[in-house]
């Protein structure tokens, strides 16, 4: 070891850590304390608006993973095909949001919630009704600024950690 | 029979004999060294026993034991150094294969 500064460097470092001892911890106690995610959060599921969907399949084409499967009725009703099955395999979904971006009818949105872990593998495949928005499955403002405005503002560490170095 | 000088001396003799046997019969140089350490320890016991029972006020035996310890430390150091040097050159510490002293 070269003692180029004969230990003053070590002492400086010790002083830095000592100062941190008197700072507020920056960690969050997760289950009790929760931070608000981004208004554009891409939570771990998709929210589907059945009323607007025309089953055009743009989302399925845009999906790089190919996790969206759409089965429509053979015959159009009111000049529209009816969706018989809209299936998202969340297990393979990478939540890139390209489908939401691609949807021309604003019928597909990213989910806002995140604590949606499942115990069984087949439960991650979401179909039709399971994809509908509900109180438990709010939609995020991803690609939809109006929706985003309504969501609570994101907690930022920069706002909490006021101590300057 | 209360424990007396003879007990210690016989213990010392036993340990010394064991060490002697090891030093003479083992083929691994390190084990030989270890046996020699046992012998030195045996001698130390005898020394301290003499000191305790014959001249308890003088501690001469303990002084000698200290010197024996010094010599033992020195012997181990140099012995191990030799072993490592030999091992480096010959790739073995089996003394039966080390016959540099032949002729």
């Amino acid at each position, binding site marked *: *070891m*070269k003692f*180029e500064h*004969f230990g003053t460097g*070590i002492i400086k470092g*010790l002083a830095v*850590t000592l100062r*941190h001892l008197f700072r507020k*911890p*920056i960690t969050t106690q997760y289950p009790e304390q929760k931070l608000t995610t981004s208004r554009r959060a891409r939570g771990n599921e998709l929210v589907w608006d059945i009323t607007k969907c025309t089953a055009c399949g743009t989302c399925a084409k845009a999906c790089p993973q190919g996790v969206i499967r759409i089965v429509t009725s053979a015959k159009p009703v009111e000049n529209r095909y009816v969706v018989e099955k809209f299936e998202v395999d969340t297990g393979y979904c990478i939540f890139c949001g390209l489908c939401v971006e691609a949807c021309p009818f604003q019928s597909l949105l990213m989910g806002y919630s995140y604590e949606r872990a499942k115990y069984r593998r087949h439960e991650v495949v979401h179909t039709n009704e399971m994809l509908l928005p509900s109180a438990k499955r709010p939609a995020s403002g991803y690609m939809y600024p109006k929706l985003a405005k309504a969501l609570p503002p994101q907690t930022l560490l920069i706002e909490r950690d006021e101590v300057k170095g | 029979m209360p424990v007396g000088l003879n007990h210690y001396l016989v213990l010392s003799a036993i340990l010394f004999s064991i060490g002697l046997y090891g030093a003479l019969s083992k083929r691994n140089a390190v084990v030989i060294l270890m046996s020699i350490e046992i012998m030195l320890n045996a001698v130390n016991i005898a020394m301290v026993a003499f000191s305790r029972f014959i001249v308890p006020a003088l501690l001469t035996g303990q002084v000698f034991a200290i010197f024996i310890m010094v010599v033992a430390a020195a012997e181990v150091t140099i012995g191990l150094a030799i072993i490592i040097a030999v091992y480096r050159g010959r790739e073995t510490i089996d003394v039966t294969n080390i016959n540099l002293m032949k002729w």
Partner: protein
Amino acid sequence: MVLNPGLGMEYHWQALPPDWPGNFWWHWLAFSVIILAFVLGLVMGFIWLERRGIGRFQIRLGPNRTGPFGLLQPIADAVKVLLKENIVPAAADKIVHWLAPLVAFVPTLMIFAVVPFQDGALLADLNVGVLYIVAISSISTVGIFMAGWSSSNKYSLLAAMRDVATVVSYEIPVVLSLAGVVLLAGSLSLNQIVMAQDIPFILLQPLAFLLFFIAASAEINRTPFDLLEADSELVAGFHIEYSGMKFALFYLTEYAEALAVSAIIATLFLGGWRGPVLPPWLWFVGKVVAVFSVMFWIRSTLPRVRIDQLMALAWKFLLPLALINLVVTAVQVLAWPEASLWAMVPVNVAIMAALVVTWSRLLKLGGGRVEV
């Protein structure tokens, strides 16, 4: 005072507090229990303190779930560890693998036999106390080495080799730096040394304190000298293959060693149980905790040194300085006028500063590529 007529070793055990009820066996038993309780309790406290403390140094909270302020965390950890499956590697040297944690732990516990908790309150006031500590503490090395060797794991073997190299090197500065204290106190008995500290020896022997702190940290493998468990290199070092109860023993050993070093530093350099107002044992515990706090403060700050730098530090920095310190102390003990002991404090601090600065300048320790 004849304490143990039966064993014929009466001369070892010196005066007990005269008001101690009963005879020697009480003392033996009571203190064994006290020491066990003290070590286990304080080790648990240390584990909690270190985890919380480092957490705070790292601007996080540390364990805070089990019990108030996470106080029960060490117990939870202990329970978890004890309930874990005990895995022994197939290629391991089974007997040695089993024995190793014990061999490492028992000597560490034995150290506390001579540490005075307050005046005369110690298991055995050995008149060779300091020597006893140094001697006993070196046995744990064998345990660590056994663990490293018997695991049949290259990482643990490397760690074992590092341990041996470290201990062989650092024993010398430890003994030499303690020699200065012993010279000043004029006794090897820890209680006597405490009694001699009208001025804490950290002031009279600042250099010895510094050297002992560094060398002892290295011997018990505390950061920045924790090369044998270096998580970034050797993953966990010598106890990589240990689990369950045996791992718990190693864990315990690690903190018991830290506790032992803290206690020794508190006793030899900080005046032990001496202090105003508060009861002596509280002073003692307070000082131990303070020393340990410095240890984990350092742990939370410093990177780790490399093995050759560790060796170089011992041989080129600590050893010469310890020798110089010994000579300086010897001269001072002989020549310093008794009355002006306080005047020695600034002198010795100045000597320490000068020596450290010059040595740092003179020696370029370590570094450099090793050609193969």
